[in-house]
């Protein structure tokens, strides 16, 4: 058995594509997913913005609906939106749209449960000190939930790596795409093995980083 001679440039290009897809969509996901999680908590009945609980009900329904669509179908279903936003439905940039949307709703639920871990008494202490709802979110909920939120981001990023491989199959490029087209369809076992190994290393590194940061902020 011999190694595929042009494997390394291919791997390099695919790695870069995956890195690009995952990092941009991770950033966008955290940017929108965490605030959405805050809204999901704060608008619960009896919480600081409980009087607008219908917002919670509507958001919850939308999130559940989005999450129930299999990702591969979701990618295809929102092609019109993707085209509208990035002008194309093929390639790593296009794939960022479904990746981000799917991950935001996932992230929102994870952030919600992380923020719910903040004891209600701490919120009451802030209220009794005269804090506004916004101050409670910014100075109490987010800092207190920080270790949990870091864990939530870590899980989401790792999930995005997995999703990006699927998106590759529908024209997104990246390591998943490479693994399927060369490793599986052309029986290049070494390419398959290399993509899997690269992804494994990434996941390990991200998880360790997340654990480290989460622990650092857990007092």
């Amino acid at each position, binding site marked *: 058995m011999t190694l595929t001679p042009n494997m390394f440039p291919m791997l390099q290009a695919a790695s870069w594509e995956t890195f690009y897809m995952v990092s941009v969509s991770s950033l966008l996901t955290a940017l929108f997913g965490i605030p959405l999680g805050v809204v999901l908590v704060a608008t619960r*009945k*009896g919480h*600081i913005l*409980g*009087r607008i*609980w219908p917002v919670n009900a509507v958001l919850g329904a939308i999130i559940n609906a989005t999450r129930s669509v299999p990702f591969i179908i979701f990618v295809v279903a929102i092609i019109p939106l993707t085209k509208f936003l990035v002008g194309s439905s093929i390639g790593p940039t296009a794939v960022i749209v479904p990746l981000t949307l799917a991950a935001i709703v996932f992230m929102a639920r994870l952030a919600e449960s992380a923020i719910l871990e903040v*004891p209600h*008494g*701490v919120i*009451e*202490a*802030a*209220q*009794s*000190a*005269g*804090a*506004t709802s916004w*101050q409670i979110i910014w*100075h*109490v909920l987010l*800092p*207190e939930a*920080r270790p949990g939120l870091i864990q939530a981001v870590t899980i989401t990023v790792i999930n995005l790596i997995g999703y990006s491989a699927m998106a590759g199959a529908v024209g997104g490029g990246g390591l998943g795409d490479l693994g399927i087209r060369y490793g599986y369809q052309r029986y290049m076992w070494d390419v398959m093995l290399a993509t899997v190994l690269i992804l494994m290393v990434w996941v390990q590194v991200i998880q360790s980083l997340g654990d480290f940061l989460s622990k650092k*902020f857990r*007092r």
Partner: protein
Amino acid sequence: MAHSIQFIYSPDTRPDLACDRFLEETSCAGNTGEPIRGVKAKMALIEIYKLTKTYGNGKGTVEALRGVNLSIEAGEIFGVIGLSGAGKSTLIRCLNRLETPTTGQVLVDGQDLTCLSDSELRLARREMGMIFQHFNLLSSRTVAGNVAFPMEIAGQPKSVVKPRVEELLELVGLADKAKAYPSQLSGGQKQRVGIARALANNPKVLLCDEATSALDPQTTQSILALIQDVKNRLGLTVVLITHEMKVITEICDRVAVMEDGVVVESGPVIDVFTRPRHPTSRSFVDVVINQTDSAETIGYKPKGTLVRILFIGEAAQEPMISSMIKRFRVESNILQGRIDHIKGTAFGTLLLDLEGEPSDRRQALRYLNSLNLTVEVLANDPDA
């Protein structure tokens, strides 16, 4: 539905903004007339008037408060005692509207809290510090950060906050822990941080919600001493709720006993403690002075007359037993005795077996009664 009628109170209260928690429980509930506002003349600092609080609606309603009236004077330490479920926690939470009353009024310094808008309420809350059973500190902030928190959200500049934090930590005896995190502190230290935080914005009132219930007896003592100390230094009014009579006798000036959502007895602590009128008050008192008749429990058979004597204040310092023995031909066998202090006033109980001729015993009892003691005859020997 009940809530449709609740948005018609004072014109300056915007019902959509007025309520923190439940849409249907807007402020001013039940006050269909003119809300009392800005009336400051000859009123106690805190006036609670016909306060009710009902949780839930329909079949599952729970009436936590069923018409509470109290007035709390400026500068006193007012205790509310009751068993769990008596409504005392709901009551204290109505004082800064962490809980929105269903009907009734809470006036603090003449201002009706039930009629305030959100922003007015936040300003009013800064006048009242609160400490909690489980301390409720921000785990992500240092001790100094926790104490700074109320000032930061009040928009105080750093130049004000920093020296004030140092001053407060000095006051509660934690100057060396400024950089520690709450998880590194003991329970008592956490509550000290809680007290410093509650005092940050120079409040008039300190609300203590079971502040010592999670602490061991020794730490409880030191926290109570601290509350007393800061109250004296800063001229605070303290409202505390507890289920421990010891806390009441330790620092409170007046006490209200709550049961089932109403105040069943209230008055100066020494009065309620020495002459409880309500069975619930009596049971709280019994816990502290362990007044359950131990003679009975040990199966003691009196040889003469078994009496319990309660003496308060100066009477506790008189040698009345020995003078009784000298004056009358009786012997006394002391079965049990103890002296407690309620805010510096000595208060004692004595269980005596009085022996002697029945007529001598009667004379002796009459003498004891004349000394302004509370004398209670528990049993007589069979042949007397």
